[in-house]
């Protein structure tokens, strides 16, 4: 076998393996869409479940997920952006900074179920918030921190140094520079990171198992101290915990969940490309 043939063989094999990765992804998405689309109608997304969840819609679960996602945003955004500004603008290469970075890598790696345990121990029991929207939002918010911090830091670092220099040379203080020059320029990247983080949070089940989720609650929550249904947990419940559940409702729920999460991902990437085109540097 000549070297050229070896090259062609290798490239052929590599493309085949890449196809093996990509094709199942497409199949999974198409499969869920094809099987779920028949269930998806106005009634399904706007009414409460009936007769032991075997009929009716999934409105409380959809709304629960939306509320939790907002709660997650409120819990995580200030801290995450603060930490990102710290790392990108203030931190020097000290031992403390290295610890902060190590902490972020570790936060990103902690299993979601361990976040669930933490939320149960810290928010539900210790702070006595009970299984509630606020306990779940805090848990999900902390879980989302590392994603948002890393993307926001990258976005801030990408702002050219000369923007800062000009601002500082005009007499602005460091914080004025960051607020009026750096952050506006970095905003698209930061928003992308936030949306990506939220899309992960919206699809998570394990952290909300013991912190928010109601098995079956066919009404809307009254306050942030109330339990709520949520789509991922609802999908788990109807596919494994309820016998004789019609498959159509299961696929419909999976489709709605997937659409919500993927459309958030899509929005994030649109924001990124749109803003990159408008960039001033």
């Amino acid at each position, binding site marked *: 076998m000549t070297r050229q043939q070896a090259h062609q063989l290798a490239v052929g094999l590599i493309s085949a393996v890449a196809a093996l990765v990509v094709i199942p992804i497409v199949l999974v998405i198409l499969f869920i869409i094809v099987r779920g689309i028949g269930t998806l109608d106005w009634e399904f997304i706007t009414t409460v479940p009936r007769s032991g969840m075997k009929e009716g819609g999934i409105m409380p679960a959809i709304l629960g997920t939306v509320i939790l996602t907002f709660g997650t945003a409120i819990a995580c955004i200030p801290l995450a952006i603060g930490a990102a500004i710290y790392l990108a603008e203030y931190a020097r290469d000290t031992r403390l900074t290295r610890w902060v970075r190590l902490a972020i890598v570790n936060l990103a790696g902690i299993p979601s179920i361990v976040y669930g*345990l933490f939320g149960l121990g810290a928010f539900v029991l210790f702070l006595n918030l009970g299984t509630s929207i606020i306990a779940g939002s805090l848990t999900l918010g902390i879980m989302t921190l590392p994603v948002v911090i890393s993307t926001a830091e990258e976005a801030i670092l990408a702002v050219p140094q000369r923007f800062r220099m000009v601002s500082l040379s005009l007499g602005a203080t460091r914080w004025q520079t960051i607020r009026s020059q750096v952050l506006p320029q970095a905003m698209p990247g930061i928003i992308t990171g936030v949306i990506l983080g939220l899309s992960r949070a919206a699809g998570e089940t394990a952290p909300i198992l013991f912190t928010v989720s109601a098995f079956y609650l066919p009404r809307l929550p009254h306050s942030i101290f109330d339990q709520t249904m949520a789509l991922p947990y609802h*999908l788990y419940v109807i596919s494994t915990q309820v016998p004789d559940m019609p498959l159509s409702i299961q696929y419909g729920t999976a489709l709605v969940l997937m659409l919500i999460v993927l459309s958030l991902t899509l929005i994030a990437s649109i924001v990124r490309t749109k803003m990159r085109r408008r960039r001033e540097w």
Partner: protein
Amino acid sequence: MSDEPVRPKPYVGLFSQVSPSDRLRLRGIIDFVIERLIQFAGVSTIFIVGLIFFFLIREGLPAFLDIPLRQLFGGRWYPIDDFFGLWPLIVGSILVTVGAIVIAIPLGLTTAIYLGEFAPQWQREILKPLIEVLAGIPSIVLGFLGWVVLAPIVQRLGAPTGLTVFTGSLILAYMSLPTIISISEDALYAVPKEYRDGALAIGATQWQAVWRVVLPSARSGLVIAIMLGIGRAIGETMAVMMVTGNAANVPGLGLDMLFQPVRTMTATIAAEMGEVAQGSLHYSVLFAIGIVLFVITFGINSLAGRLMGTQAGRRRKENI
């Protein structure tokens, strides 16, 4: 009249009533406060990791104190009769994770090589978002598909049940692929173009350049990718819980152990926490499993973070 200096427009804002010197002082105070807040936000990440560990210990410590270690890591998990042996769960987690990694490493690295070195631009623009989409699909959706579609297929292949180590590994492999692919692609991208050009210039084919030059120089990045992939796989909960059968037994050695049901540490916590009385021994043991998971992933990620740090340091030095 004419030599009166041109005054700047008065500053109209929050502090327009304050005299200029006071305004400067105020600005200094605001800056000081905000910078402290920012610093606090940064340092709070360390604090949060500490808090997580603290609360796991707080709830899980009784398990380590009340159950002899020999029994806690013993071979019987039967909570109803107070047998809390974690060994079957640890073995379950290891089996499923190893299976996933064995599938994911060749798939992930090869795809990264394809994306980084061989794929034409238009393909890259389609494939990369697609892999991001895979990362975005909720694990519960993949678990659901594994449960209703994949498990019956595995059973038809001749396994006694469709809910097995293999089913779990296959799904976990695809769930850890985005991590492995994106990090190893970054590692390939970081290899200087001169290396490739040099190899091609002395007559190597593109494949030879990749195999002999690019891959060896990206080695440490690829190792990090695999480690983070392992970390991701071992902590996965919902999908694994739905497709591995949840039988807390240690399968006998052999190839057919791949087609037996097991129960992982993560699945045990998720499945049983809802049923235990708060403060009971069973409850603490579930937190103890959380501690074991935390320690494992902490170890893997700290090591990977270390490697990343030294790698970044080396790159900085090269740039100077």
